[in-house]
């Protein structure tokens, strides 16, 4: 998380630290046996990782304190529409992991709400992004040991698209922005998610209740001015999520 702060204990209890081999990502607790994450955390160039490589950690904000108590996957369910063969298509970047043992919820471990079917993603609304990904330390990117969070506004789709087109003109390779994605961030940059945050939650609040609007998916660089972070738009996947959980 660029430009963020340390998350106090029990403030984002649905945040999951997820490792796949030596890689780090994030996840979101949505039920006592289900973790939601980004598809690209679990699949690369059409290949899904073995569930045995996936370890998850919950209930803390310190990596060191959590790392000795991993949770294991019973099964991994990558969205069937996810295909990133050319590294420029991250549509349907969503996956579900079923835990081997159910979680018992407590102050440090709680689920986030799924969006209502008619949830609105209103431009300018401030969301909360969290994760254990890279942080900006005076111009250097370092691996953090703490959970961070940053608050970012939702960005208008056209504005986001325009910013990416501008980057394309500067010969950046930019993935396609689809209707299953939304953008968040500030034009001046500095506040953003980064590598290691993939799969982590972007939440909005309504009636003092957090609901997961997005999943950290991709971006051009981290914290770059004029470039926004892109998130999987969860509301578009409610049917798939519910069906996957029911069928499994």
């Amino acid at each position, binding site marked *: 998380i660029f430009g963020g702060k340390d998350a106090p204990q*029990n403030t984002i*209890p649905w945040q999951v630290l997820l490792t796949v081999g030596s890689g780090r990502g994030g996840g979101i607790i949505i*039920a006592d046996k289900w973790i939601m994450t980004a598809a690209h955390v679990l699949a690369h160039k059409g290949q899904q990782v073995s569930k045995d490589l996936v370890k998850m950690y919950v209930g803390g904000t310190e990596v060191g304190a959590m790392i000795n108590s991993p949770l294991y996957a019973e099964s991994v369910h990558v969205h069937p529409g996810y295909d990133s063969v050319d590294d420029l298509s991250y549509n349907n970047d969503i996956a579900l992991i079923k835990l081997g043992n159910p979680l018992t*919820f*407590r102050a440090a471990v709680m689920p*986030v709400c799924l969006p209502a079917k008619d949830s609105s993603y209103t431009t300018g609304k401030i969301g909360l992004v969290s994760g254990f990904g890279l942080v900006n330390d005076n111009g250097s990117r370092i691996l953090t040991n703490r959970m961070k969070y940053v*608050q970012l506004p939702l960005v208008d789709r056209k504005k986001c698209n325009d910013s990416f087109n501008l980057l394309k003109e500067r010969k950046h390779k930019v993935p396609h922005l689809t209707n299953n994605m939304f953008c968040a961030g500030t034009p001046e940059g500095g506040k953003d998610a980064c590598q290691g945050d993939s799969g982590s939650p972007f939440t909005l609040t309504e009636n003092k209740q*957090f*609901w997961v609007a997005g999943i950290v998916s991709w971006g051009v660089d981290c914290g770059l001015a004029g470039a926004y972070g892109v998130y999987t738009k969860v509301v578009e996947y409610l049917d798939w999520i519910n069906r996957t959980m029911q069928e499994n």
Partner: protein
Amino acid sequence: LSDSDTVMHGELHSPQYPEPYPPNALEQWDLTVPEGFQIRLTFTHLDIEASDGCYYDSLTVLHNGKLLWKFCGNENSGDGNHPGHQPILSPGNSLTLIFQSDDSNPERHQNVGFFAHFQAIDVDECSAPETGNGPLCSQICLNTLGSYLCACHHGYELRSDKSTCVLTCGDGIFDEPEGHLSSPGYPNLSPYSLSCQYVISVKNGFTVSLNFSDIFHIESVDSENGPHCLHHWLQVTLPNKEPVKLCGKKSPGLIDTNSSSVTLEYHTDNEGMSKGWSLDYSTGRMKCPMPGSVTRGRVTPSMTEYFYRDHIYVRCDQGYKLMMNTQEIKTFSTVCQSNGQWHLPLPECHIIDCGDPEPLLNGGVTFLSGSQNQYLSLVQYHCNEPFYSLEGDQNVTFTCEADRQWRSNDLAVTKPTCLPVCGQPTQEIRDFLR
């Protein structure tokens, strides 16, 4: 003759007969025939020196040492004592004959002695004159060889003394459900020396009631403690109980024996005066004791008395179960047996137990009222808040019902579910700095 020999007839004669008997002869015959017989002695010839009183030679006949006859002479002699041609009978079953001769005989005549036959003759005891004790048989005497038998007319039976007859009474067993009995000759005087036995025996499970008529008269000896049944009595015997003797002039009225068999024995001795008794007997079903009551249960049918073959049932109140010897039973019934006892004791009713309420995942259960898990106990489920909340009605309670299920107010059996609370962390991010 030896004692063991039984001789029924024979002959005897003087020494050397038919030659003259020798002088100084002495011979004795002891004749014995079985008891009940006499000896008939028939002389075919007797020729013994005649003398006055048979002084010189003689044949002496004795019975048990007592002189019966002393014979001598011949049928033509003027003196002596000739038995003649008629046989003589012994008074008992034995005779002793002694023949003796002196040392001289008259030269002109040689006496040849005697020759006689004897035979056992049956005694007709029935024709014998009465002794001081009366006739041998009180009613019918039947002579037999060597003895006699007594017999009785119809309606009488021979008593154990084998000589006297007594009126037949109380013969057989009365096994009909009701009947009538009375003493011989009732209401006239009872015969003497009665020993009548009446056995009333009806089917198991039924009891005999004796209803004596008002005219009741059995000789008694009055005392301060009431009549004593010394000489005449009616004895009532019930199984496993001491016999009771009845006498006096007051009718016992109705006697419920509570037994299926009763023995009545009517006794009179050979004097006194009793007019006897009369009764009607009837039977009823054996009564069982009142079964009592069952706490938290009902005994049906409820009756004032219970008799043989009656069934009773026990049902527990709602919320209670039938227990017999620590075992739960589904139903209970018991029957009044023929011995007047219930075949099973009453069970108990114990309050039912629903068992522990099913545990609730991520929640718990709170007892609101009642003894734990027992009928009508009230519990309420709760979830581990604030992380879980109860699905549906938060105030739903479950009651231990009579069917041993915990049921909610709307009679549902299924326990509630704790749903996770989402998106509401216990700690807020507070960012006061601007």
